[in-house]
């Protein structure tokens, strides 16, 4: 049955439903029992201290402990912020990503890392990371970037049931976004299937995470100018639904990619590379990337707002693709 939820409640519902469904699911992280970010509210009362673990500030230690637990049959969920993942990179990269392949398929690691991206709110350089491109560069992770409550819930549920290491990049700028969510198995959202929240015929905008609502606003604005924009939300970056993107570009001939992460070697770069190689003859204009400027995140709002994509920047890029 569908109901309305905000993004962070949808995450909470996913965890609740999957912990109820499967005893091997447990969650660990810093300050999750008191749920300082809201996503783990009520878990302690319902599932107890054994399955809801507050950890010391030891990311490398407990990210790795999640891996070890997953190897012997548990399904851990780890809550963290993107910026704390740097502290645990050895466990993420040397172990989580590589273990299965390195051991010839003997290791199965059903572990989920939920990493919130807090950016755009004056958190400055140490707390504003949007690090999914760096993990896309490392084989071994499934990478999810939900932009709606429905996908935040559905992708997380699918990730918990998946048997490989998954990283869910939860977009803090969308924490209060409202939308419809389903319950139980009906809520599951498959990996590798893009969403097309708006159909159009002139220009394709592929938007990632927090850029999705910006792209939709830009599309509305451009419609007033008689420009029809198709918005694609890949929802998962690994695996990436490239056929939906290529089919859209075959129809529109024009592509803008909106990505809140740094623009060099980014998800946007990868999508541009795929389309330039596999959809080259469909293109009628250069591909435009609207990604974060290649600079650290400044604290002061007057500078910070210059860094990220915006609906204005996306609309401008769309217009560029339409220039003769």
């Amino acid at each position, binding site marked *: 049955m569908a109901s309305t939820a905000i993004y962070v409640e949808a995450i909470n519902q996913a965890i609740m439903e999957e912990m109820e469904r499967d005893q091997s699911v447990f969650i660990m992280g810093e300050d999750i029992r008191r749920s300082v970010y809201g996503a783990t509210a009520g878990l302690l009362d319902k599932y107890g201290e054994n399955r809801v673990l507050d950890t010391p500030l030891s990311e490398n230690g407990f*990210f*790795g402990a999640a891996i*070890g637990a997953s190897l*012997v049959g548990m399904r*851990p969920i780890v809550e963290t912020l993107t910026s704390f993942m740097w502290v645990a990179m050895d466990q993420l990269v040397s172990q989580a990503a590589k273990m299965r392949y390195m051991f*010839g*398929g003997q290791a199965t690691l059903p572990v989920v890392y939920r990493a919130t991206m807090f950016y755009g709110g004056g958190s400055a350089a140490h707390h504003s990371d949007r690090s999914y491109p760096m993990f896309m560069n490392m084989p071994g992770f499934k990478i999810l970037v939900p932009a709606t409550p429905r996908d935040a819930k559905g992708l997380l549920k699918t990730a918990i049931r998946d048997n490989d290491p998954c990283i869910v990049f939860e977009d803090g700028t969308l924490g209060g976004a409202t939308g419809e969510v389903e319950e139980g198995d009906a809520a599951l959202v498959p990996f*590798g299937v893009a969403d097309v929240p708006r159909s159009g015929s002139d220009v394709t905008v592929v938007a990632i995470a927090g850029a999705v609502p910006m792209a939709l606003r830009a599309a509305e604005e451009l419609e007033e100018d008689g420009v029809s924009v198709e918005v694609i939300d890949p929802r998962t970056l690994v*695996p990436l639904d490239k056929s939906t993107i290529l089919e859209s570009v075959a129809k529109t001939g024009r592509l803008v990619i909106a990505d809140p992460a740094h623009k060099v070697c980014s998800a946007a770069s990868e999508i541009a590379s795929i389309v330039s190689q596999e959809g080259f003859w469909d293109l009628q204009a250069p591909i435009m990337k609207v990604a974060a400027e290649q600079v650290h995140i400044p604290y002061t709002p007057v500078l910070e707002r210059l860094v990220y994509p915006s609906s204005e920047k996306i609309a401008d890029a769309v217009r560029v693709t339409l220039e003769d």
Partner: protein
Amino acid sequence: MENVSKEKLVQMLERMWLIRHFEVRVMEVHAAGEFTGAAHPYIGEEAVAVGACAALEDTDYIAGNHRSHGHPLAKGGSVKRAMAELYGRVDGYCKGKGGSMHLADFSIGILGESGIVASSVPVATGAALAAKIRGEDFVSMVFFGDGASNQGACHESMNLAALWSLPVIFLCENNQFAVTTSYHDSVSVEHISDRAAAYNMPGVLVDGQDAVAMYEATREAVARGRAGEGPTLIEALTYRYEEHSLGLGRVRRGEYRTQGQIDEWRERDPIDVLEHTLTTQGILTREECDAISKAKADEVDEAVEFARNSPYPEPEELYDDMWADPIPLP
């Protein structure tokens, strides 16, 4: 000693000889160019893994490090599959994808060796966490060196394990050197086992050349773990006879130890120590000890032949084993 069965003692000697012959043959065939890549001989340290693993069941877990051949063989891993892995063949433990530093056999609790120093310490801690959450009585043991004892991963894991009373045995193989750096130059305490006090767990200093002492110390730590009394740090004092890795002697500039020191440790060779115990106690004769050595040398020869005859993987196997739930290639 009175509480150690004859069967157990003989098995320990067998596994120590198996590791010794395995490593000697690895050095020979590597020097002959039969396979390439890094390998780190465990010669001189056999009593540590063998004594410790003798205290475990197949349902218990181990994880290890780059000095990686002794641990799986000590836990009962297949010598043929281990050798075939070093040769990069399909019959290797990891189908040729892991090599020397990543031997693993999940079917008997060997959760894999790790090439990054201290990186498997959190992983083993997590296996122990699963035991606690599920209320089961298996334990987890992790082998790491004196060098690894300085890594944050080690300290974070020890704190977690003690905080949560996890059944994990932190087994520090202090072989005196991290590549060329003496632990006296890198560790702030006299003994690495002293660090256990900082995490409110027992720290035990053991003669790592004595397999029986290793077995007894580990057995006690395992019993604590199974009883829900938490982790133990065991420091095994041992010695690496060979260079850090095969071939390093050819490129290294500058000495870091004397022949006198090596000879001194060789005088207490772990195999000699156990054989002395077994023969003086009348458990085995000299001839029986020699027969064990010969049998294990033959087993290693067979493993080398097995590895040589095992095929290399096919090119289409490149992408296999990436995913448990496969996704399309990018």
